[in-house]
């Protein structure tokens, strides 16, 4: 229950850091570009965001509170509230805080908070409009971002006005799968609906141990008339980690549907 311990539980908390802190995700990709030509990038890690924090001119009691907090959670984690973003992050101080006396019983305190993937959350991010990003089936360079079990059993539609981003893959071959790997919190699966759509099975697997954090669940994508892409499944409230989202053609359909088509369109990932 370490996530219940919030360093700065309110906007008026004395333990809130000073303005001017810096926060962000570390670079998690290897990047190479020769003196000319293509840029190459690869994701190579999955790490939490960091906050460089400073508390200036704090009184002795606040300094002691921070020092004690730091020692208390050296072998544990706690929650840091980012009141600007309205979000909570689970993590720890990367290294012991440093304290500099500046006279008159006041102290400057510095430290770095690092978010830890896999740690339980006090509250999950819920603003899908602002904090989430889309992973399409292909990027703008024409490279697949989705892994298809048997590429030959899938058809790419470069122009499908009902699909998110106007493009999608589809297949109606039973047990064909489309998978995305993502780093983030929860995700939502977007797909269009149509008269020939079947029932798809959606599951989410945690990469670090292969556990199904969301067991395969069926979703019916049938609609008598075409419906533009929208979230068909929202798998929220996952802790920060690397996940594999799997869409499977179940080979079943709504009684009124004329086909078993699964559309691999896009997923939205909470970051």
């Amino acid at each position, binding site marked *: 229950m370490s996530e219940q311990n919030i360093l700065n539980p309110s906007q008026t908390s004395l333990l809130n850091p000073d303005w001017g802190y810096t926060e962000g995700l570390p670079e998690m990709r290897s990047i190479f570009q020769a003196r000319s030509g293509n*840029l190459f990038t*690869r994701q*190579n890690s999955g790490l939490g965001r960091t906050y460089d924090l400073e508390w200036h001119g704090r009184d002795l009691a606040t300094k002691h509170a921070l020092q004690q907090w730091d020692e208390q959670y050296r072998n544990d984690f706690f929650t840091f509230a980012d009141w600007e973003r309205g979000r909570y992050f689970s993590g720890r101080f990367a290294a012991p805080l440093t304290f500099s006396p500046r006279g008159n019983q006041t102290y400057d305190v510095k430290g770095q908070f690092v978010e830890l993937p896999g740690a339980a959350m006090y509250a999950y991010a819920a603003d899908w409009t602002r904090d989430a990003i889309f992973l399409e089936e292909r990027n703008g360079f024409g*490279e697949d971002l989705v892994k298809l079990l048997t590429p030959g059993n899938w058809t790419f539609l470069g122009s499908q006005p009902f699909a998110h981003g106007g493009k999608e893959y589809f297949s109606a071959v039973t047990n064909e799968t489309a*998978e995305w*790997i993502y780093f983030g919190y929860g995700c939502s699966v977007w797909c269009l609906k149509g008269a020939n759509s079947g029932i798809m099975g959606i599951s989410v697997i945690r990469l670090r*141990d292969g556990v199904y954090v969301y067991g395969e669940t069926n979703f019916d994508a049938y609609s008598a008339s075409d419906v533009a892409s929208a979230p068909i499944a929202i798998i929220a409230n996952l802790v920060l980690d690397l996940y594999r989202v799997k869409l499977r053609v179940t080979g079943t359909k709504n009684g009124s549907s004329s086909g078993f088509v699964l559309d691999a369109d896009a997923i939205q990932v909470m970051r």
Partner: protein
Amino acid sequence: VIALPAGAPAELAKSFAPDLRIHLLDVQLGNGSNFFWSDFEGAFLSRLTGAVEQYKPWIKQPPTIKRTRSLSADGGSFELQNLTGNTIERDLAKLLRDHEAEGAYVVYRRWLVPLDVCYFEFHGFITEQSVEEE
């Protein structure tokens, strides 16, 4: 010539792939016990057992393989962490003390995560292992 598995050439050639390229080590000691280590925690298909195994994220320095194309043996070396364990002994130090690691069979693979295929594989035997404090 290394024959790449289906899909790997296209995946490796991508400019902006969201893929993860990781290092996997399957180790079988003389007494038959298996160990699975990676530089990236995860459950991957093992070469030794043919089943999905949990790879411990212990690799600090993945192998640098030198291939000689001569009668000299090809080889490489790798480093594992020696930090986990209790205050009296470390996991890895204990492992090397309790079991004979000399001559253990090692399979080193480079692995593409989204595709779940291996695009480089190297088999060998362990020799000259040493334990140092972290």
